[in-house]
């Protein structure tokens, strides 16, 4: 039996060389967003990268269902979109929906980081004592014994949180006569004249996605609310989301103002105060009662 003939080998080599050139050109073009259009022309497309904080969320673009997130796949890359404005929606049963109109640019991926808070967030009261009726006793100098309830350390921590004007989620606070400033990493949020202004003071290369559209970036983002902002802080674990206290309740507001900002309700009532704990939980104070929020 003869070895592979030289003629065959030259044929394979030539064939594969041609395939290499064609496939490389095609794949590089495809990878950068070029697509054949229906009219056999070439269109230059872009896409969205949509993340979801939880599994079981339905992601739709322009009314078309894209995917349902799961434990292993919590994001979706939507390609082949011609440059235009698209409606993106992320919904999940029992959660408030998130909708955004965003632009697609050629060769670019527009990021979207939705959030979803339960339609009826559960408020769990933080009690001062572990168990009602559980007492410790102490005896004073004259020998009188008194029973005390054992105070929960969690309660003490939360109570202390509300005793200060700041939360303990890593952000820093600066209060002056005219404004309140909160800083998280290189993000600065300034409350001034009943509005919030979010600025980036870090390296331009690390600027959060919502400051930029295509290659054009803004210096700051304004957040306008329906009523006076009584208090605000960064949403736990997010640098694109704020928790704000308004006259009508406590809300999560996204900083991203590339289109109308999404606002979702955490708790609706008057005279509510909130703090963000170092454990990533949001606490609410209503009257003298303290609550943790399951969102």
């Amino acid at each position, binding site marked *: 039996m003869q070895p592979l003939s030289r003629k065959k080998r030259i044929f394979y080599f030539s064939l594969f060389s041609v395939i*290499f050139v064609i496939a490389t050109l095609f794949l590089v073009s495809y990878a*950068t967003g070029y697509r054949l259009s229906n009219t056999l022309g070439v269109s230059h497309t872009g896409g969205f990268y949509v993340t979801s904080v939880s599994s079981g969320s339905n992601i739709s673009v322009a009314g078309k269902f894209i995917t349902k997130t799961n434990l292993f796949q919590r994001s979706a890359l939507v390609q082949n979109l011609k440059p235009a404005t698209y409606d993106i929606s992320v919904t999940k049963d029992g959660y408030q929906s998130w909708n955004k109109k965003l632009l697609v640019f050629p060769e670019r991926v527009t990021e979207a980081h939705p959030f979803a808070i339960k339609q009826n967030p559960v408020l769990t009261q933080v009690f001062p004592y572990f168990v009602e009726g559980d007492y410790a006793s102490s005896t004073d100098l004259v020998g009188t014994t008194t029973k005390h309830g054992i105070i929960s350390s969690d309660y003490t921590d939360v109570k202390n949180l509300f005793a200060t004007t700041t939360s303990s989620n890593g952000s820093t606070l600066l209060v002056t006569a005219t404004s309140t400033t909160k800083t998280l990493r290189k993000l600065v949020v300034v409350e001034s004249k009943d509005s919030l202004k979010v600025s980036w003071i870090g390296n331009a290369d690390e600027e959060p996605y919502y400051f930029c559209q295509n290659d054009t970036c803004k210096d700051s983002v304004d957040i306008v609310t329906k009523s006076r902002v009584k208090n605000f802080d960064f949403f736990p674990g997010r640098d694109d989301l704020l928790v704000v206290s308004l006259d009508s309740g406590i809300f999560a507001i996204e900083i991203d103002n590339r289109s109308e900002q999404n606002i979702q309700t955490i708790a609706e009532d008057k005279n509510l105060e909130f703090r963000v704990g170092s454990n990533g939980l949001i606490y609410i104070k209503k009257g003298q009662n303290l609550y943790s929020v399951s969102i």
Partner: protein
Amino acid sequence: MRYQDTSYFKVGRASDLSGNDRVLYRLLEIMPGLLSWVTILGTILLSIFAPVAAAYFIIAFDVFWLLKTIYLSIHLRHNWKRIKYNLSEDWAEKLSGMKYDHLTHMIILPFYKESIEIVDQSVESLRASQYDKRKMILVLAGEGAVGKHNEEVANYILKKYGNDFGTIIHTTHPAHLEGEMPGKGSNIAYAAEQARLRILDPQHLDYHTVIVSAFDVDTVAYTQYFLCLTWYFLTAKDPMKVSFQPVPFYNNNIWNAPAISRVAAGSSTFWQMMQQERPEKLATFSSHSVSFQALYEIGYWQKNMVSEDSRIFWNLFLAHNGDYAVVPISYPVSMDANLAPTLRQTAVNIYKQHRRWAWGVENLPYFLFGFIKNKSIPLWTKIRTSIVQIEGFWSLATNPIMIFLLGWLPVVLGGSRFNKTILSYNLPMFTRNIMIVAMLGLVLSAAIFISFLPDHPKNKKIFANFPMVLQWVLIPFTITIFGAIPGLDAQTRLMFGKYMGFWVTPKHRNDK
């Protein structure tokens, strides 16, 4: 002056030369490592400063790699069919109309500290081979450095097989000879000369009619190996201008070797099988055969370097002004897969063995220097051979690293601006998908590997067959850890002039 008469014909390293020759040789030693490092570091730097260009390059490289895999698989599959055909062929019948009783086979079996059992198995396979043993000379080439063990092995073999071959002799290579590096090259060169003085000349054998097979000590010849080799020798256009290369199977202890060893061994076999279909890329490797006349003309194997098995081909190539080739005989010999008492030690041995093989890169400066010096070699032969060989060493050291490690680099290093492009999202997906498609080729690998396995040992359960298939998922790991990294290691050592010595792969048998 003939090239083999020049002072630099058997140069081992740059420091053996002086003046401009030394500088030139040193630059050629630096070149392969530099090329590999420039490729890897260049891709990293490109990923930082020009991530889009890096991404284009990686996509092109992915496609290149996939097509190369398919291209090589075609060669592998053809050689698989050819080996099966050659194994089923009756070579005695094929030789029946030919005159070959004038030929003599000389088998040089060098040994060091290997056990009697290993030498015995190899010699037994020679005795069992279908060839007129009167026409076979066995040279047991021992090392004086191991003293008593050398004598014990030789005495055992001489006593057991003394009457089974035309001639059997024992040679003892003296330790610490000046200008020699301890290793197989110096041993078999000494043994060949001893055989000439003690056998060929006294028996008035024509050097042209003696076929020398330089075997590794664990080489077990298949029964018709020498008949097959004889046929190829007789049908070669000019048998004095070719070497004969069998396919090394690592089957001797394959059922006892761990998965990483089996995959590494199988991959080495597959590489040799592909090369058998691309003889212009083939240099002699491990066990090989060549006429005594060709060896004698150039003074046998080089004694001052490690990779004597490949160097002998380049010696002959330069000595014959490029008119020398390797004939791939597509017939197997069986050798040992790496096996040590512990898995860790096996892994270390595989790494060291592959680094020694990759140290074959020391031949690159040798023949490139020879191409510059030897004006009698046709220019096109020089260019073609240089490109083919440089690409081979470059591929070995860089391709697996590029494929398995660098695909994500522009995404990690390219910065936020690049990470907002659709290209940055597609790049990892493309690399992953191309890898998956390429991995489908492993089905072929598994099928070929299984088809050449020796009989299932009685003490192994039938389930032992499954790991022989499943093991191939280790390929991305083994070709990086036991292919690219030792390749890069060897090239880097050569680049910095940290020359390697000969490392003898320990032979261990575990018959549990």
